[in-house]
């Protein structure tokens, strides 16, 4: 398998601890890799480095063996890109914009482009200036996908999309994956990454602090979050003393949320026999929960 994205000690130091630091990525063809992190974690900087828009202050990155800075123009043939900030050129409508873009790519409007337009339900006659955020985002997505590039770099691709369109987007991702397309996407919505990504990198202060592999997915899903509400203060005290891992305590509503492995359930229920409880709910741990916990730890 060839490496679509390979970086070695890739660094862009903006000083004051901002930027990305010592990034080592190796993304093989046909995989979908997500990168998550809070605002300012360095997701956009990573994308811009891979696009050759920024000159790294250290290390280097390659797209399919081509250096992303020195051979930027050649790598663009391999990349479909959705920028993190959507701003369209000064042109009339979605249609003129797509046509201009196809001209720049030296491609023509074919069946696939029309299919994409239909899939995202885009009204091409709409004036660019009056487009809603979601509409712009969908047009930007069509722009990236219509390149039929073997690598898609999508910076927060689902921002502004409604749930139906988000599903359409996920379907499309899975479809292009089946064709061997490599996708590298960033998001701050962990749950949507869960449905598409083979691997999720967790970026914090410009460094990758955690990588979620399929095995780790399983392990995360093997945990359950149990929220228990005690009837009285005495019950709450007992709950707080419990030996299970507590992720949240709410003295006011006398609620405790504990994180347990599935096989610990009988033990938990046994302990609850001594407590008068008014409510209990059980959820499988999601990536959101996991990262929430990780964020608190790091």
């Amino acid at each position, binding site marked *: 398998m060839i490496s679509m994205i390979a970086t070695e000690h890739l660094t862009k130091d903006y000083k004051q601890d901002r930027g990305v630091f010592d990034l080592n990525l190796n993304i093989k063809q046909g995989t979908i890799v997500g990168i998550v992190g809070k605002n300012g974690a360095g997701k956009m900087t990573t994308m811009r480095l891979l696009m050759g828009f920024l000159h790294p202050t250290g290390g280097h990155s390659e797209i399919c063996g081509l250096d992303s800075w020195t051979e930027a123009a050649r790598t663009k043939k391999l990349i*479909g890109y959705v920028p993190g900030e959507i701003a369209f*050129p000064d042109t009339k409508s979605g249609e003129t914009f797509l046509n201009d873009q196809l001209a*720049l*790519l030296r491609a023509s409007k074919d069946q696939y482009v029309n299919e994409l337009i239909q899939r995202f339900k885009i009204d091409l006659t709409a004036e660019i200036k009056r487009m809603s955020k979601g509409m712009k985002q969908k047009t930007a997505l069509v722009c990236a996908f219509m390149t039929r590039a073997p690598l898609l770099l999508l910076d927060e691709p689902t921002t502004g999309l409604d749930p139906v369109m988000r599903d359409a987007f996920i379907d499309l991702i899975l479809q292009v994956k089946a064709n061997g397309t490599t996708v590298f996407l960033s998001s701050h919505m962990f749950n949507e990454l869960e449905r598409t990504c083979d691997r999720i990198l967790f970026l914090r202060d410009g460094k990758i602090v955690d990588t979620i592999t399929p095995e780790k997915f399983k392990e995360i899903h093997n945990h359950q979050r149990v929220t228990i509400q005690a009837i009285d203060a005495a019950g709450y005290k007992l709950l707080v003393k419990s030996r299970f891992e507590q992720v949240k305590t709410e003295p006011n509503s006398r609620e405790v949320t504990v994180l347990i492995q599935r096989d610990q359930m009988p033990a938990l229920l046994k302990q609850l026999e001594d407590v008068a409880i008014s409510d209990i709910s059980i959820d499988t741990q999601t990536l959101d929960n996991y990262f929430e916990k990780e964020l608190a730890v790091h």
Partner: protein
Amino acid sequence: MSFPLLKQTFKANFSVWGLTTLIMSILLGQLMAMKETVTLVGPMFYGMLAPALVALFVVIAGNRILAGQVDQGSMAYIMTAPIRRTTVAITQMVYMIGSLIATYGIMTVVAVAVNHLVDAGFKTAVLVNLNFGAFMVALAFAGIMFAASAIFNRTKYAMGTGGLLIIAFILLAIIGSFSNYGVKGLDAVQNLTIVSLFDFKNIMLEGSKWLPKLAGLAGVAVATFGIGTTVFAKKDLPL
């Protein structure tokens, strides 16, 4: 050079170019048709109006073709295509130079035509040289604005440097022009502006001093377009 990009740039800036060229042509035709044409066409039109009006187009379009699109973020779509940054810069440069050639080409035609119609008494060669000189001023302005637009990622900085410098040159030229009317103390001011490198008086007297002076303007243009292209190819783009 990228033709699709050139076409987009042409379309995006057509109205400002067309309007500037139209106003300049009408003014020139009008002034030539009046009496006292030597004063009106010389110091008034080529000395002040032509540089000031063309600066409108140069500053607006020059700012828009690079810095404006980087600032707005729409440059991302151009840079997504497999086009080298140098090619992007050169294409935008070709647009600027090409439109100025068109503007002054049209003005030359208008000047020669009006000269014939109203018998204003200019030699055709003088009119051609006047427009060539004015074109060189515009070219130097375009280079300055291009460099500013290529260096900065924000339009306010591009405007605040390139745009301001061009306006300063025009103002100094206007102030300096009063030395023609006997204010001797203002002679030195003419040395502070590149506009005075276009010696329209010498052209109208059919002298030979004006041509070497234009080389100064050509030098400014070559340097600024060169700097702009180089910087744009190497800088960080926030796209």
